[in-house]
């Protein structure tokens, strides 16, 4: 079955630097990959969706890449700010298994001033 792995260790970076988070998957490549942000005690909030035929997607300071050869997506936050501190989740579609979405365990990002 499809498995997703995100950086298990929390990521600590300095304000102004670029944060890079990794999402690796096994087996088949999904048609869609999504990234969500989750703050403590709250539900996830959608950030970006990238399709399998798109190598890169940008939204303001956010950039997502999708490499189907490496079976990996990278999520970048440029010019990071303390307000970017949160847990970031990647999610893949399971089109081959009924069209459900499966989530990684998330990576906790902490941006220090």
């Amino acid at each position, binding site marked *: 079955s499809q498995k*997703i792995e995100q950086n298990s260790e929390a990521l600590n970076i300095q304000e102004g630097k670029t944060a890079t988070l990794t999402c690796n998957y096994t087996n088949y490549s999904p*048609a*869609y990959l*999504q990234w969500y942000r989750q703050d403590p*005690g*709250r*539900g*996830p*909030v*959608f950030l970006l*969706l990238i399709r399998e035929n798109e190598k890169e997607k940008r939204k303001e300071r956010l950039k997502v890449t999708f490499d189907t050869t490496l079976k990996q997506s990278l999520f970048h936050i440029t010019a990071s700010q303390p307000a970017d501190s949160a847990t970031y*989740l990647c*999610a893949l*579609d*399971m*089109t081959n298994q*009924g*069209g*459900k*979405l*499966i*989530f*990684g*365990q*998330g990576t906790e990002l902490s941006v220090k001033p």
Partner: protein
Amino acid sequence: NAGVTQTPKFRILKIGQSMTLQCTQDMNHNYMYWYRQDPGMGLKLIYYSVGAGITDKGEVPNGYNVSRSTTEDFPLRLELAAPSQTSVYFCASSYRGIKETQYFGPGTRLLVL
């Protein structure tokens, strides 16, 4: 729009008790989902619905039941609460399924003692 609302916010149950977690969305979305999130883990899909009257199992459906009599409401029923059901439960909705953004509710924290 209120988006996705969930009640209650927090509940303590005794082993063997039953309860219903409520979820309502006012975005006229066809698809609705129930997830559970254990500490440090990703979201696990419990049940989902593609429209009123249609529901299907997700990854972890055992011990839960759902119904979808209207587009707006998607309650989750726990019949015989067990300690393993201690978790945070999130309801989500989307317009046309996994190809699009999922909007999440604020979550219900459930403790089974």
